[in-house]
């Protein structure tokens, strides 16, 4: 049985939620699998992430989200987190008065905070006592968020563009983090626009107009994505395969 199953999920926005964002999307992740999602902006990747995490306002109009076969459509975020799902948002929020040390110790942390910081390329000596507030750069905050997710030891980590805001010399750190999740047995749903990040995954899927256009070996999906996507199809309609 897959760890995560997303079955024919429909989700819309606007008046009466009639503007479709996800149009019957289905996806499955196995235990410990790193699965990359590729797709142009606005195709529904982050919406899917929010639906799986159970963020406020994100409930499928129809379809199912299951973890270990159990339907979780109606569970609130913290109950999903207790089942082992967690998420690093594309733009992590800042917190006043909370040190990195305290932040990494929140919740059901399983790992050593200092070790997690080192894994994301930050020195524990320099960062453990710094506040997770607006004094951090975007890249620093992003790394701390990744370290905090790593410290939780989740069964499923949803990483929404973990590489955005990270300088190009440090992309290798992001790759190390994703490898660390895999080594720890966590499954990762990885949203990225970088081919070098996507291709370290076990599998990849291309999202287009709220559906999975194709899935398979990351290199093949990346090639398919570059050749055929929402931009190239021209009419706003994809050629589904």
């Amino acid at each position, binding site marked *: 049985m897959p760890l995560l199953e997303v079955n024919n999920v429909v989700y819309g926005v606007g008046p009466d939620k009639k503007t479709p964002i996800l149009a019957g999307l289905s996806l499955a992740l196995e235990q410990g699998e790193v699965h990359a999602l590729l797709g142009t902006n606005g195709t529904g990747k982050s919406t899917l992430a929010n639906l799986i995490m159970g963020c406020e306002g994100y409930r499928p109009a129809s379809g199912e989200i299951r973890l270990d076969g159990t339907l979780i459509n109606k569970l*609130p975020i*913290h109950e999903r987190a207790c089942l082992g799902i967690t998420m690093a948002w594309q733009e992590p929020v800042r917190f006043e008065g909370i040190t990195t040390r305290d932040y990494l110790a929140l919740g059901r942390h399983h790992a050593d905070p200092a070790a997690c910081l080192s894994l994301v390329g930050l020195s524990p000596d320099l960062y453990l006592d710094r506040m997770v507030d607006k004094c951090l750069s975007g890249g620093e905050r992003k790394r701390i968020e990744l370290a905090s997710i790593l410290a939780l030891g989740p069964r499923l980590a949803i990483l929404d563009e973990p590489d955005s805001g990270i300088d190009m010399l440090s992309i290798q750190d992001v790759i190390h983090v994703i490898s660390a999740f895999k080594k720890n047995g966590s499954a990762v749903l990885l949203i990225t626009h970088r081919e070098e990040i996507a291709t370290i995954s076990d599998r990849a899927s291309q999202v287009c107009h709220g559906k999975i256009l194709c899935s398979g070996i990351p290199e093949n999906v990346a090639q398919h994505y570059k050749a055929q996507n929402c931009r190239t199809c021209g009419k706003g309609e994809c050629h589904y395969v």
Partner: protein
Amino acid sequence: MSELTDLMQAFGEAGGDRGALADSGTAHLSVSNNSIVSSRLVPGIDVQARELRNGVSAKVTVREGVKLEKPVHLCFGVLHKKGTQRIKMDVTLEKNSSATFIAHCIFPNAEKVRHLMDATVDINEGAEMRYSETHYHGLFGGIEVIPKLKVKVRENGRYYTDFTLTTGRVGKLGIDYAVEAGKNTVVELAARVFGHANDAIVIKEKVVLAGENARGLIKARVAIEDDATAEIRGITEGNAPGARGHVDCMEIVKDRAVAKAIPMVQVNNPLAKVTHEAAIGSVDKRQMETLMAHGLSPEEAVDVIVKGILK
């Protein structure tokens, strides 16, 4: 038990450092109602204190060039259920001196207590003062605290103060601070208050950046719940070239509580700049979701966020 013993016990329970009061190298002044129950001086600081009918008057001077290594501890308390305590305090830091003051104001049993402070602070050229004041008002809310403070910071002086009332009830609080900042000075005023039940909080802090290149920051963090109310007025005037000021106010509101923030900025010199930011509302949704994604319940997440902003 004696008044001193009672006060010291309450001081310790309110988070005060009793060891510091016992330390022969640390200056302190402890006042219970209108009685000076304990005091100590160290070289470089003069304190002339006298008891009044319902309080204490104290004149504190840090001598020129003296840099006190250890903080001066102040402890003001009313341990009875009822009473009025007036504190009249005049503090002078002479030229190039520096001192840190840590004050604890303790009213653990207050059912009908008034604590009125009327203070002036004169920071002379090149001097630096840090003043940290922590209050504990008990659980009954029967207290009114009205601290009034006027500060003058002269050339190259520095003044930092923070007021904390985050444990127990607030009762009625009416802070009224005004600071005049001279040339090349730095002023920071911070307040953190957590109101519950029908607590009523009014914080008025004003910084006049009168001298060239004066710097001022007013920072207020207030959380209120139940039927509590809060009004924060952060006022900054930029009156001289190069003056820079900022007012930063954040209030978190729960239940039926009502909050107002009135940042007022005024610039009377084209080369001065004053900015402000104010945020009032319930706990930030994205912060909540982030913490809940770490496995915290909604209640735990609110608690972490509120404690963080009040830290």
